């Protein structure tokens, strides 16, 4: 939230009433320097901060922020210095500044305002250069002394003769003010600032015509950290229904990529299916990642291994109804009873607010499951012979994942114990749910060559050296099998076969899980 916005100027004439750094306009009135009629004290002591609002020449024309001594507010400004013969002392220095709270909940709150400050500085600097917009401001404004004892009302004209007219005036708060001095009407800067502040605070954007030729357009953009890189073996899962928001004006590549995000296909596969280069696909997905509209998982295999993380405790305690949420996502509505034709769309039912992927088409499960099915929609699931399994059973399933046990083995354990998991639960979705919620992690498989490690340690690694295998560069323990699979287009078994002919002494290769 903008607490205050001001326009400060440096007045070079010594001996006049107006000398030094002065606040020419401020909104709300009295936020920076006191004005009569406003009992609320200023946000901070401007005299302490004025040297940073109009700093030395060396620091002008750059974005400057400073905190007040109490640590409550930050002043964001961009002092602009314009050098020209037409000014007194050949220099015109001004600053449009914004005051925001320091203690804002997150840092990110301050970042969007940088652009606002820059835009104000740039616009007014350009307008000043073009037609002396600021230096010949005909509107009446008040000037508050930094001491704040007696505020002076003055009208200041800087013409060739450099005369100063002092004129008692009552304060015109953000108002009409009418034509003064016979110039063409234009909006006083004070009211302009007020509009900027109000619009940005209320709508996050503003569009203000300053005069006939110039308009200030600004918008606050939230700051997101740079998303991680998208790799070929990642599986993007949509967090929103793209089909509902996409429109033909979107980037064409993005549109093609989005169509193939199904929560099952990996990036490489999506690139292939969308007929887009892998790099562009990754770029497009990273863009989606930046806006937090997708999340990245890894490929699901029945031969892969998943293990619980400490957060699995939340699942056992059913924190925030997470188990019920899981049930809605993973339980299979038996194909024998009915097949809801609307299931893919109504997945969205409860998940718009939470982070559940909701746009996974049920048909994609066909290769995994014998009976394709959507997810159980009814919350209770008790009526009509539905297959909503008990919370206990879901907890049981989730907690029995373990290091050193593949999904297939896990499945077999349950089937042997008399619970036919496949009939009630979509295993892939269960695992996916666990991964998304941070209940499970994937135990990856790595291949390590001791020979190669030794070479790396001594710094004489020669990837793809003479007689080296194309797989050699993967044998340093930093490349998962997923990566080898996607990059070399091999299956797990094929990789293992290839490794048999790996040119290395016996016992050189080991398979590592972590």
């Amino acid at each position, binding site marked *: 939230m903008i607490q205050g916005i001001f326009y400060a100027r440096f007045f070079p004439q010594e001996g006049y009433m107006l000398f030094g750094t002065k606040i020419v306009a401020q909104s709300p009135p009295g936020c920076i320097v006191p004005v009569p009629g406003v009992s609320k004290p200023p946000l901070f002591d401007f005299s302490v901060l004025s040297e940073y609002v109009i700093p030395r020449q060396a620091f002008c024309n750059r974005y400057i922020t400073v*905190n007040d001594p109490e640590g409550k507010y930050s002043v964001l400004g961009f002092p602009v210095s314009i050098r020209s013969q037409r000014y007194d002392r050949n220099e015109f220095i001004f600053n449009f500044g914004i005051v925001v709270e320091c203690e804002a909940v997150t840092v990110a709150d301050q970042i969007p305002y940088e652009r606002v400050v820059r835009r104000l500085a740039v616009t007014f600097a350009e307008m000043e250069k073009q037609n002396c917009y600021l230096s010949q401001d005909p509107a009446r404004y008040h000037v508050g002394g930094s001491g704040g004892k007696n505020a002076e009302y003055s009208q200041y004209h800087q013409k060739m003769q450099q005369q100063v007219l002092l004129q008692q005036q009552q304060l015109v708060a953000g108002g009409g003010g009418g034509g003064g001095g016979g110039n063409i009407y234009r909006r006083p800067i004070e009211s302009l600032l007020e509009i900027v502040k109000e619009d940005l605070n209320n709508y996050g954007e503003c569009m203000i015509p300053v005069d006939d030729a110039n308009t200030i357009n600004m918008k606050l953009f939230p*700051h997101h950290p740079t998303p991680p890189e998208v790799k070929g073996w990642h599986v993007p899962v949509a967090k929103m229904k793209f089909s509902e928001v996409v429109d033909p004006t979107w980037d064409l590549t993005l549109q093609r990529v989005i169509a193939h995000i199904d929560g099952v296909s990996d990036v490489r596969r999506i690139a292939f299916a969308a007929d887009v280069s892998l790099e562009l696909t990754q770029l497009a997905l990273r863009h989606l990642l930046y806006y937090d509209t997708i999340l990245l998982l890894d490929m699901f295999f029945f031969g892969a291994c998943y293990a619980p993380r400490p957060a699995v405790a939340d699942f056992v305690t059913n924190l925030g109804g997470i188990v019920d949420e899981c049930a809605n996502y993973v339980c299979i509505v038996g194909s024998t009873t009915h097949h809801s034709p609307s299931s893919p769309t109504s997945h969205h039912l409860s998940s718009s607010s939470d982070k559940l992927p909701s746009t996974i088409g049920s048909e994609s499960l066909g290769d995994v499951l014998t009976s394709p099915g959507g997810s159980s929609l009814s919350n209770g699931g008790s009526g009509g012979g539905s297959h909503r399994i008990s919370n206990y059973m879901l907890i049981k399933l989730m907690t029995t994942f*373990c290091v*050193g046990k593949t999904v297939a083995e896990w499945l077999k354990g349950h089937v042997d114990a008399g619970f036919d998991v496949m009939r009630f639960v979509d295993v892939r979705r269960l695992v996916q749910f666990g991964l998304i919620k941070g209940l499970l992690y994937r135990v990856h498989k790595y291949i390590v060559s001791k020979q190669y490690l030794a070479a790396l340690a001594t710094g004489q690694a020669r990837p793809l050296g003479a007689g080296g295998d194309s797989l050699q560069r993967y044998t340093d323990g930093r490349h998962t099998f997923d990566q080898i699979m996607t990059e070399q287009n091999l299956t797990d078994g094929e990789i293992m076969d290839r490794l048999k002919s790996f040119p290395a002494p016996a016992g050189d290769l080991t398979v590592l*899980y972590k």
Partner: protein
Amino acid sequence: MALPVLPSPSNFLAVALVINRSRDGPRFVFHYPPHVGPAQCSGAKPDGADDVDIDDDDDILLGRATRDGLKRSTSSDPDAAELSHWNHEDHLVTESGTQVVPWEYVAGFPTKDLENILTPARAYHKKLFQISLDPLLCVSYPVHVPENGVWRNKKKQQQQAPRKEDADAAAATDADASFRPADRRASDVDQIEARDIAKAAVKTVEETEDKKSSMTMFNLVFILNPKKHEAKDLVDVMFFHIIKKINKAYKYCQQRSDFVWKESKRILALKDKAREDKRTMSSLWDDILSTSSLAASMQDLYDAISRNRIAALQLDTPEGLVTHSVQIPVPFHISDLPQDDSDDQRGLWLTTANSLMGDDAVDEPDYVDKNFALLPMTDEKKIIAELQSDADETTLQMIEFVRHCKPTLSFYQVGQQSSNILTPAQVRKFAQHFIFWRRAIAIPPLHARDMYIVSPNCDMRRLPQAAAQWARQFPLSPPLPNFLAELSVAPRPYKLHCPSKAHRPVYMTMLAWLMRGGWVTQLCTFAYVVVWPEIVYEVEFAFEAEEIARAKRAQNRGGEPRSVEGEGDFSSTSAGMAALGDPAVADFGSGFLPLLEDSPDLASSVATLRDLSLSHSPTLARTQQHSRVSDAGHSSASPTLLITQPTDSDQLEVLWRVTTNASTTPAEQAAEKARLERIADKTARELIERATAHARKAVPVQTAHPSVNSARHLAGISPHIILDAKKATGKESLYLSAIGRRLRERGNRSPRDGGDGGLRPGPGTNSMMSSSQRTSSSSRLFEHQHTKSDGRGNHHHVKTAVGGSSSKEGKENGAANASGGAAGVKDGKDWDERVANAWPLFWKYFNGRSALERIALQEEMKRKDAWNLLTAMSEYLLCVRHW
């Protein structure tokens, strides 16, 4: 604990000292490192992280504005182009003859300008001063001279030299206090007093002169260049742990001996002379660093903090050496995998063990003592050598401590083993000291029976170096990749990786090595109590019976059940039961009327609850059923009784009405009476109804394995999980005691089947199998898949039964079997007794947060015993394993 944003050479550019003088104005004294190039605009950072948010057109316009500014800059300033080619070593002379001095440009700004903007007003005295000069961020904690203009604090001079920080961790953590001997206000008062005294004693002329021209403030500025989103965190971390503390240390020295001002004068003099002589920057800097301990301390500070080490400063004041250390504490462990692939947290030890210390452990200092061991981060000999370098009494004790500390021994055990040379408080203090100074970390004691897996957070980038180091340190052991692979295939107790008992010590050292590097983490078991439907039903049933009995008792006493309801925690009398005027029930009840002459209702119903577990025989149950029904019959007869003998409270009520409302007519009284009658009638009928419903329910039957009881009356009930057995109340506590009874009577019930004893908390232990498969599957649970490499990269999947009775582990676990199966015949009862006694003792660990592996330590039991007891309880536990 999340990892803080840490300084690095990329976001921490330099540290600079700026002072202000009363007469001559501000001066930029010193900065380190010597060459601080103009920082790139955040928009142009190589990683492109932050460049998204600057408009292109704005940039173009701004670029023009900047250039305009530069072009018209004063002619004495060097050309921008010239500056960019400058090596920041030699002096330049511009065309106009101005000398450009290399040390007068820091981070692209002339120090002339920086010294002005970095000397903030008194309003910032001892406050955070933070100014961003795009892209730099200058953060500092300005220190001004006290209002009276005198730094020196006469009284302080009597104080002894500051304690040596290294020797006392506590002092270091509380460094503020050590440098601010008194409360701020108090010290000001002191100073005024001191001045008054000095005045009286006629101050020397020199001193007053000094006061006039001397330093009015100093400001140690930290020049940062953070990424946008991490700026605030970095500033917070730096300010709190470094900036504030270091400035306080300087202030302390300044107050005592005018240290900062004297050193500054020396540095400035050197600089002025070098400017005349046109010395190169590097030779001047070498000179300054060797002559000024203030400058050297800035160097130490920058070098250490930018690499996230501990900065040890030595300030050579006239009154002796002042040493001080600062650091940004970093967690040595994380409790969960980092969100994304953030590299800075890679390699950190992954555990939830320490996160517990936050809440529960506060009230029991024992907890830390018993559950943690010290793992030195460097060689023990190295630490001892370090300590021996300056020996005093404390260090001798510390050496003793280091000698006794083993990663396999808890602090508690260390205290005991040192034959009580070290008190527990000492052990704790020393341990904290080593941990604070990053010489060691606290870990749960290593044990060969525990399972260790390759940490999913281990830093594989370090693998090549680590493997080489490992080979040097453990030349006879399997190579690191192989050993890690072996650990990673399937979780097994660590000792199974050890070829023989003789190898055990070496293998424990290897384990410590792996822990230190964050390569492995312990796989722990966490448990919750599961209440099987059978138990749920049993408790509910007994509970209902008791409630009915209680209601009846009240009725018999002539009271209304309503008044009884308040007593019970779980009043479940549903007033909505429309049992009124149900002749069938009444008849049914009255049919048994003759039976209850002796009205054994109370006794029998209580028996149903208390002795339910004893009553297995259906006949007994049936008799109970009879008696219960007869109770119902009895109650149907009681309304008349009730009316003639109203309860005390009712009587009172009536009396009250009569006395207070004298105008009550007899008719009204009759109506009131009728009303009471109706109410009594209704409750009585409801009771009958409930009793009947209860009587119709199936009688709970105890089976040997409640987990697999699939009786029809249990079908609708799903198992109940008690989340924290320690905090269980109400029904949950009834469940717990019911399970306790079961454990106690298990031996009586039936000869134990061997399979059940081998059930060990672990993957899939949680008995979910159906009864037919139960025995067979319990042994299968221990099957882990092994992937063995046969050297040429040929991998077979081999199923090996680790559990059961075929392997070592199995035998070990089978100890429970032994006592269950073999011993079950002779002392099974004793064993059950033990299990049942341990049950309430172990409750507090069944909360999903306490690792079962630590119970033995905490309860001071033998690990084997603890495991056997847990194994015996395992049917009632839901287990999950993670770190």
